[in-house]
């Protein structure tokens, strides 16, 4: 039987890599320390599989066909295509087709209709946290893309419920696996729009308080109301909402938060306790 052994979240701004050499030492220290703590916890959980929920930044999908949710069911995934990520140590990442297919079937039975992809390229949203957190050895990856780059977006409530279904699917998987989940992106940031560079620290801190409170309805109402006002990158908090759902809205533990205008991102890092009461039907 599979066990969900850890749930985590980390920001993923591209300038964490693109601008690394020119970041102030204090910023490097902050990012290094926060990513290292996320990585320490993931490594300690010893997952066989890591489900990673991230946006797709126009790598796999375009306006021709833009799924709200897509699950990577392939045996392997390509590494990041961004030229500035050439030093990422994996040109290919192992997938876990069996678990990915099982999750897909389970969430369909729960009323979700994600697309599936047998060949995804995992962009910086996936790979910066995997790289900077120092996850070693890298487990098999089940990538899940939630569209947070171009409207229409799934609601925060829908993402929360989807995350809960993922946790249920893991707990019902027949194989013996340790499975962790990592949500990437957020918190507030604004890219390529008139507010570019602004960080809504008030939004970020209130958002983190709502995650910590465990009050699902208050959090989701807050996100629906405030997320669209906190920059286009804040849409990625949907991934955190999915992680929160997987955790049963409990056990949120903030590892670090800093507004980091030098990389344009309100940077958040967190972990959740695992809700053993999520329906398993084992």
């Amino acid at each position, binding site marked *: 039987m599979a066990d969900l052994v850890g749930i985590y979240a980390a920001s993923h701004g591209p300038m964490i890599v693109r601008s690394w050499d020119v970041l102030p030492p204090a910023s490097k220290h902050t990012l290094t320390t926060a990513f290292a703590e996320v990585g320490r916890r993931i490594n300690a959980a010893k997952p066989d599989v890591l489900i990673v929920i991230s946006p797709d930044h126009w790598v796999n999908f375009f306006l021709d066909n833009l799924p709200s949710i897509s699950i990577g069911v392939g045996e392997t995934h390509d590494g990041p295509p961004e*030229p500035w990520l050439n030093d990422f140590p994996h040109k290919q990442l192992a997938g876990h087709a069996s678990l990915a297919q099982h999750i897909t079937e389970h969430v369909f039975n729960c009323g979700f209709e994600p697309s599936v992809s047998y060949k995804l390229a995992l962009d910086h949203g996936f790979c910066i946290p995997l790289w900077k957190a120092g996850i070693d050895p890298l487990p098999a990856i089940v990538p899940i893309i939630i569209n947070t780059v171009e409207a229409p977006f799934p609601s925060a409530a829908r993402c929360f419920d989807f995350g809960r279904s993922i946790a249920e699917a893991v707990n019902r998987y027949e194989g013996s696996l340790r499975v962790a989940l990592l949500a990437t992106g957020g918190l507030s940031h604004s890219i390529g729009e008139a507010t570019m560079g602004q960080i809504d620290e008030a939004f970020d801190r209130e958002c983190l308080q709502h995650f910590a409170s465990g009050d699902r309805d208050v959090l989701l109402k807050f996100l629906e109301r405030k997320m669209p006002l906190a920059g286009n990158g804040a849409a990625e908090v949907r991934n955190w909402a999915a992680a929160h759902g997987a955790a049963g809205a409990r056990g949120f533990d903030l590892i670090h938060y800093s507004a980091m205008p030098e990389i344009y991102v309100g940077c958040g890092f967190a972990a959740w306790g695992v809700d053993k009461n999520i329906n398993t039907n084992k």
Partner: protein
Amino acid sequence: MRDYWLNRLFFDLQNPAAAAEYRADRDNVLARYPLKPVLREAIVANDVATLAPLVNAYLLRFYFLVAGMPEEEFLRRIRASGEQAHG
């Protein structure tokens, strides 16, 4: 509302070879896309304010990196586009 071909151009330029060709011979690349004349002119003029409402913001930001606009200049122009939009 998005302009498909404007977004398509910016999306395609994520390919490093396409970006290199664009920097070497912009007009030849633009000729392959059925862009509205006003948008083609806006691209040539680096008119961020005209392009911004019609293209995904991430692709817009990426395009001006590819096109070689300095970051500070892009920030100045994109922020000014908001001021224009709000009068």
